[in-house]
């Protein structure tokens, strides 16, 4: 049936979008507060996924069991990263932008090397929960669904954290207007560190979930940096709801184009969307116009 096919494609796209959203949220939080585009974001996601696949193969530890530890480790890595490498950036905004790009670029290079040294260049995946449910002729892969549900759950926790706690409000204030936030007595340096703590923690979670639904090798990291960044651009910089919406749209685009065009066109969608949005609606769907 035609309708079933469309429903199937929509479900596949949305399930994929869930994990994309998590990847993008971390990047967006960091970008919002610090104006740093973390080029190592995808590499950190993939490194976590590679660790998950090894733990699963060697010791039969599932990615779900790794998840809480990975988030804590990711938060640690994020904190250290900001404190050691990205603390003292030049005052001049354009120079700061270039310097931070170069440093995160160097970090991503290091991480590719690290992942290649430990895990080689082979493609890996986790063969956990490979079966699927069939409801009315539509297949729902269990692993995909689980990853999606957990991604939504984590995004919801994050939303509560950002909206209803004093720290979360301070973080959003720093993201919206640095000088205003500083005038209100918010410690901007602390918020910058916190954005990395949270952002990389979420990236680690995304990596765990991704490990169940994707095949990856150390080189796929830059693809995920690009996917995450194009979602941030699509949804609107600094808009967290926009990131979730953007991720869903991108997931749908990959799913539909991949089926009706071909898989190559499908995996090109993030770049196509990225360039089109930047050229025609640079503020994104839910973003405010940038002066």
């Amino acid at each position, binding site marked *: 049936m035609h309708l079933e096919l469309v429903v199937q494609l929509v479900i596949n796209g949305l399930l994929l979008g869930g994990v994309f959203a998590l990847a993008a949220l971390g990047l967006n939080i960091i970008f919002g507060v610090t104006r740093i*585009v973390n*080029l190592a974001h995808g590499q950190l996601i993939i490194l976590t996924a590679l660790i998950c696949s090894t733990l699963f193969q060697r010791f039969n530890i599932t990615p779900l069991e790794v998840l809480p530890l990975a988030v804590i480790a990711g938060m640690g890595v994020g904190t250290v990263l900001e404190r050691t*490498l990205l603390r003292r950036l*030049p*005052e*001049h*905004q*354009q120079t700061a*932008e*270039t*310097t931070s*790009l*170069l*440093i995160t*670029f*160097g*970090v991503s*290079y*290091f*991480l*590719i*090397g*690290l992942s*290649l*040294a430990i895990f080689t260049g082979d493609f890996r995946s986790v063969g956990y929960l490979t079966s699927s449910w069939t409801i009315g002729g539509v297949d729902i892969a269990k692993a995909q669904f689980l990853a999606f549900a957990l991604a939504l759950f984590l995004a919801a926790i994050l939303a509560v954290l950002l909206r209803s706690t004093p720290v979360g409000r301070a973080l959003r204030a720093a993201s919206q207007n640095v*000088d205003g936030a500083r005038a209100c007595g918010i410690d901007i340096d602390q918020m910058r560190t916190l954005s990395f703590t949270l952002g990389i923690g979420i990236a680690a979670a995304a990596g765990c979930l991704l490990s169940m639904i994707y095949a990856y090798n150390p*080189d796929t990291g*830059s*693809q995920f*940096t*690009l996917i995450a*960044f*194009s979602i941030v*651009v699509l949804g609107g910089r600094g808009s967290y709801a926009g990131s979730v919406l953007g991720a869903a749209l991108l997931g749908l685009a990959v799913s539909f184009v991949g089926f009706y065009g*071909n898989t*190559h*066109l499908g*995996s*090109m969608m*993030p*770049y*196509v969307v*990225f*360039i089109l949005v*930047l*050229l025609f609606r640079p503020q994104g769907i839910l973003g405010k116009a940038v002066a």
Partner: protein
Amino acid sequence: MTQRTLGITILALLFLGAVAIPFTGNGYILSLFYTSALFTGLAYGWNIISGYAGYLSFGQITFFGIGAYIVAIGTTRFHAPWYLCALVAGVFCAALAVPMGWLMLRLKGPFFALGMLGLAQSLRISTDLIPWTGGADGIYLPPGSNGVQVYYWTLAVLILAIVLTATIDRNAFGLRLRALREDERAAGTLGVDTTTTKVKAFILSAIIPALLGGGYAWYLTYVEPSSIYSTEIELQTVAMAILGGMGTLWGPFVGGILMSQISQALSTKFPQTHLMIFGALVVALLLALPRGIVPTVVDKLQGKRKPPEPEPAPLAQTEVVT
């Protein structure tokens, strides 16, 4: 003036030595020198758009890849001489850079950098969709020992790139590029046609990797998407140009020669972990010498003669108050 003569003499001697390398008949040494010349040339190409014009690009490998594929297809399908194909690749990429640059150079900062990376990635993925490329299987070129030919070709392109950069370094076009880098809007107000200027720089930064990529295909005698649109080549090139000193005449030279030697030494000593060590080295050097080797050394040397320039007034601070 004497300093300049000295520089030219040293450079001429270096190239004389480089030209003599194939006569040693040692294939390993030839490959070492070829790699150094290749990366230094790529770093020079990258330096024009990213160093002088300030548009950080992570996608110049696109032109390198197109150049390699044009040579591969030209030599196997049309049995044309490879250097002719490489020249065609240079012309083709120059033409391609006009619409591409016009479109992409509207983006700024991280958006341009990642946009270019995305472009290179989508081209790598879409190789399957382009006829004659052989898709993921790649193309085998006629086998043979092409090392010496390609080595001289690469040296010639490198010299071209250095001469080009030396010209830009001191002419009005170079000044316009630097004005653009410092403040695009101000440069526009002062009468610089910003779009034309940056597209021109982009064209130059496309021709050099295209010519080098053409040689690379003939050298490897095999092209395949992931080894041609190689992230590793791109990353190394960018790292070399940055560490040498972006937007300087000798930065890519120092960075390219030094880092390609270090990188090759590391890869023979530590075959498993060389990328990681190289990456750590890149980060460490970035933190220690954020502006690169050449500007830092030049400052040290000149510091003895010239008093340091006064700190520029923090303009950004004054805007914020309103």
